[in-house]
């Protein structure tokens, strides 16, 4: 099983996404979707040796909703910065976030969450994978940004991905 299908979830997801993009559930598109779902995980396997573990799907869904809400809020914040804040009052800052997460997939999700939220962009991950380097567009208090990320996102990710 694991030899032929290294990521069974990914296989299903690829087949479903293919059918969604084609917009039909005919035998033709399902068959081709399943073919993609078998071939692509096998091809990317050398780059992705581990398996994605989601321990609680309700918590993952809750996390997704929280992130969507935070993105909406910071969209407004960044829009106001772009439109109204004088350039001289802008306080960009680099923030280093030390990581408690060790799972590569969880760190990827955290980095993606930070980037998707307007106002913060993940710029790098340290060589040992123990810290993220983040650029903030406007952070008068960089320490609070770091604490926010750790308590709001990392703590939740730790609950359902590690």
């Amino acid at each position, binding site marked *: 099983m694991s030899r032929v299908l290294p990521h069974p979830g990914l296989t299903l997801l690829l087949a479903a*996404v293919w059918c*969604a993009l084609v917009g039909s559930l005919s035998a033709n598109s399902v068959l081709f979707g399943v073919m993609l779902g078998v071939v692509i995980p096998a091809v990317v396997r050398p780059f992705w040796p581990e398996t994605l573990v989601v321990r609680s799907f309700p918590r993952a869904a809750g996390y997704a909703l929280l992130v969507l809400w935070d993105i909406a809020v910071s969209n407004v914040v*960044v829009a106001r910065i*772009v439109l109204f804040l004088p350039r001289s009052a802008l306080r*960009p800052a680099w923030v280093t976030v030390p990581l408690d997460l060790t799972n590569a997939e969880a760190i990827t999700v955290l*980095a*993606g969450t930070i980037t998707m939220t307007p106002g913060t962009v*993940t710029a790098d991950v340290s060589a*040992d994978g123990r810290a993220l*380097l983040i650029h903030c567009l406007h952070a008068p208090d960089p320490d609070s940004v770091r604490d926010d990320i750790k308590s709001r996102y990392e703590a939740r990710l730790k609950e359902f991905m590690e």
Partner: protein
Amino acid sequence: MTHLDSLHPAIALIAAVLLIIGATLTVIGNLGLVRLRSFYERLHAPTLGTSWGTASTIIASALIFSSLGSRLVVHELAIGVFVMVTMPIALLLLGRAAYRRDPGKAPPSGRPAKPMREDEQPVP
């Protein structure tokens, strides 16, 4: 355009509001590209368009076409997920490339101990 005549007014109104929100956010994001000064500040601007700028446009499209009954909604969802998943990767690579090639403006505290190439996987 004739099939839009059969659209329910309430749905049309919601979709119009969503489209205006999405377009406004995208325009403000692009305005930010012009107004912000440094490369790193400009990295933040497009996230407006790629997050809720895209999302509300997609939701409007899904609303209209599923209420007209011409096709399923899932199409838009797939597009939205793709945009939201690929955008952080592009920005991460841009930010990383910029600050590694720009040692003079590198952050004082946040520099990784050594440049990394092969060991991107966290050491267990």
